[in-house]
């Protein structure tokens, strides 16, 4: 930590020229923002950083150093969510150096100039802090989106009283099939449904692992006293399943979703047009 005595001149400068320096800092940063954040918003955000930098970097206040890291983390997290690039985020911090350097040069204060090198490397460190937090925040955003996609891509819908449907679209991998399996079985219990139709019309290919997962879903549904019908098995997939030697046994499979629904309606004894409790 840079002691107060090593940066006396800079401290004085930052304190006495607060408005000018902060104004210039906001100005430089605002130019890179292309209107995505207003000057007023930036002034509040950077004003807070400015005060913390004075205390932590120049004043050697450890408590302020912690607050500064937290504030920088918060700023880079919100920037990451708003879609700013990491360079833009780090530049927001680096811009302070430019603002300070301009003033130091103008003042021709050689002592302050000498202190600037140390100050500059401290600000660089702070810029890197935003970079790190930015990367972590982006990873979190990606992880959240993946999870949302997983949920989005596997809706369990009610087709009729006592009949649930899961239209599967896109590539099925092990993780997704597992999510489907769990949410389908949960919904069977919640709704008290007797039959579920897994429609794989929109699934381009089925490998051994996915076929096994589908099979397990059907078996688990059976253990719970319900039935699971697989529909939309296209010729290539049927060939794959046979070639893989996966035993689908006595599982009800139907060519189309319509066939499966007809089968399910027949099984539950429901007759279209005579819905109960509708």
């Amino acid at each position, binding site marked *: 930590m840079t002691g107060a005595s090593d940066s006396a001149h800079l401290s004085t400068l930052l304190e006495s020229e607060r408005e000018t320096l902060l104004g210039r800092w906001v100005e430089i940063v605002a130019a890179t923002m292309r209107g995505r954040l207003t000057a007023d918003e930036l002034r509040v955000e950077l004003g807070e950083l400015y005060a913390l930098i004075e205390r932590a970097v120049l004043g050697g206040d450890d408590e302020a150093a912690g607050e500064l890291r937290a504030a920088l983390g918060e700023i880079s997290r919100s920037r990451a969510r708003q879609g700013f690039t990491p360079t833009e985020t780090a530049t927001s911090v680096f811009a302070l150096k430019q603002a300070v350097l301009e003033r130091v040069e103008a003042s021709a204060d050689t002592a302050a100039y000498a202190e600037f090198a140390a100050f500059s490397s401290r600000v660089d460190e702070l810029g890197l802090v935003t970079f790190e937090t930015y990367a972590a925040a982006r990873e979190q955003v990606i992880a959240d989106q993946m999870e949302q996609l997983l949920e989005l891509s596997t809706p369990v819908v009610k087709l009729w*009283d*006592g009949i649930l449907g899961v239209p599967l679209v896109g590539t099925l991998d092990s993780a997704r099939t597992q999510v489907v*399996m*769990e949410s389908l*079985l*949960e919904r*069977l*219990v919640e709704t*008290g*449904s*007797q039959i579920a139709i897994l429609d794989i019309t929109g699934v381009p290919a089925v490998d051994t692992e996915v076929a096994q997962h589908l099979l*397990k879903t059907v*078996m*688990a*549904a*059976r*253990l*719970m*006293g*319900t039935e699971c019908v697989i529909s939309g098995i296209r010729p290539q997939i049927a060939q794959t399943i046979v070639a893989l030697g996966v035993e689908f046994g006595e599982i009800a499979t139907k060519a189309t979703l319509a066939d499966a629904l007809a089968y399910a309606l027949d099984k*539950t*004894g429901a007759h279209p047009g005579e819905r*109960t*409790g509708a």
Partner: protein
Amino acid sequence: MDRVPILKIGEVLLVSIQVDLQDQTVLALQEDLAERIVATGARGVIIDITAVDIVDSFIGRMFATIASMSRLMDAETVVVGMRPAVAITLVELGLSLGGVRTALDLEKGMRLLGAPLPAAGPGALDGR
């Protein structure tokens, strides 16, 4: 050791498992059930496992044993209320409970046995 109570509802014996089963309890239940089926002339057995959070191979095998044993005495067995997580685990473990009939809940299990449902509030006798 706890013993699992067996209730009689009409011609059906109802076993509702509410405790963490240990092997001795499982074996005792098998014996008790056999005796009660003979003594009551019950036509059906329902094992309600809604409250059971794990079924391992020993408990799973008990269901199969009770099912074949009661079938010999002309009573049908239905296991009801298996939780999704339990079902998924049993499948992974490799236990398919062949020969055991299952139903989603007690009501559907009673219906499967053709047993008259006790009159209750609306909803108890809805549907088919």
